[in-house]
């Protein structure tokens, strides 16, 4: 059975995506639902800091063209002319590949008339998977420092998460609304947007809602850090018909607990209640779109 996939995202960084994703995953797993939490913020993955996991690591690689031994036909520039990214160039002594620009599409290899191009695997990052507790697995993706292919590592992370046999998969998304966000959110069953009542929070929420609509995803909002600003994010959600499924107050105790890698559901007196209520609201939303989770 294909798991139900819920993404936790926000345009702005630091609104509380990881806080929500980690605590929700732990809470729901304890109700008996088989969960996988996948950390798709591959540039700056943080979920693993809240758990004591010994992940089983797999390398993520991409195929990059390599020039094989031999001589190119005199004056031939077919590979260079075919590449739409300028990743293979004629620099005087034959074709030279620029891996950072390469999209691994294989077009140049296919089009070469002289069989001079092969492919080699180049490492761009890794995925890891481990057990947090009974019924909760953690999958994390990590982009190698200096590499640019975040969407590739995100794809590998989602794929790995899909093989864990869970009923529900929670994706902790990276901040932003560009290609990394699309790689994380494309095709999920539900999108939870975490925001805060500040002008930055609202500005970036609007961008995320636009992306969510383009991707045709059902959405709901978690309003975090209520009390830190006076911007009427709730009013915006209402006018856009987006349900608010939780409101968490700003609380220095929350910040302190989180700062030291603690889970709110265990370390904060209201944590368990907050996430119980959030899960209840989220389940209602899921049921209303036909993705109900059995109790």
């Amino acid at each position: 059975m294909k798991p139900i996939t819920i993404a936790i995202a926000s345009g702005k960084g630091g609104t509380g995506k990881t806080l929500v994703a980690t605590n929700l995953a732990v809470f729901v797993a304890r109700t008996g639902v088989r969960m996988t939490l996948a950390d798709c913020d591959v540039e700056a993955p943080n979920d693993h800091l809240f758990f004591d996991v010994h992940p089983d690591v797999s390398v993520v690689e991409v195929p990059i063209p390599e020039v094989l031994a031999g001589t190119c036909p005199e004056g031939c520039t077919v590979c260079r002319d075919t590449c739409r990214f300028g990743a293979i160039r004629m620099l005087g002594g034959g074709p030279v590949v620029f891996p950072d620009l390469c999209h691994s599409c294989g077009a140049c290899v296919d089009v070469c008339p002289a069989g001079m191009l092969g492919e080699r695997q180049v490492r761009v990052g890794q995925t890891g998977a481990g057990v947090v507790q009974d019924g909760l697995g953690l999958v994390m993706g990590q982009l190698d420092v200096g590499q640019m292919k975040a969407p590739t590592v995100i794809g590998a992370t989602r794929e790995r998460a899909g093989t864990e046999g869970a009923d529900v998969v929670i994706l902790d998304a990276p901040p932003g609304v560009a290609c990394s966000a699309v790689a994380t959110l494309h095709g999920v069953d539900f999108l939870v947007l975490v925001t805060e009542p500040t002008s930055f929070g609202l500005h970036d929420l609007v961008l995320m809602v636009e992306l969510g609509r383009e991707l045709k995803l059902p959405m709901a909002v978690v309003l975090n850090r209520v009390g830190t600003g006076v911007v009427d994010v709730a009013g915006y959600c209402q006018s856009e018909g987006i349900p608010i499924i939780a409101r968490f107050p700003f609380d220095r105790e929350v910040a302190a607990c989180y700062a030291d890698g603690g889970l709110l559901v265990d370390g904060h007196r209201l944590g368990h209640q907050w996430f119980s209520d959030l899960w209840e609201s989220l389940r209602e939303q899921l049921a209303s779109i036909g993705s109900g989770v059995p109790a």
Partner: protein
Amino acid sequence: MIDLETMASVVISNDENRAGAEGAGIGAVELLAHHGAQAAIVTKVGPKAADAFRRAAIPVYMAAGLTVREAVTAFSRGELTRLDLG
């Protein structure tokens, strides 16, 4: 491009590269390689172009604040600093 023996020179447009999606610096180096440049004199060079120069085996010399004539003269006298391309 200047031929140091004859001092004949020709100007090559780099406009096509500037409009490209990525790697405009690399495109400039490719253009120079295509025209058979054996050395390049620059005022500054970005990391992508520097990498391309290295891979094209074209040495690069720095000449900020000089006219082309002054730079070529200084180069001929061995007065320009060669850039370490790594």
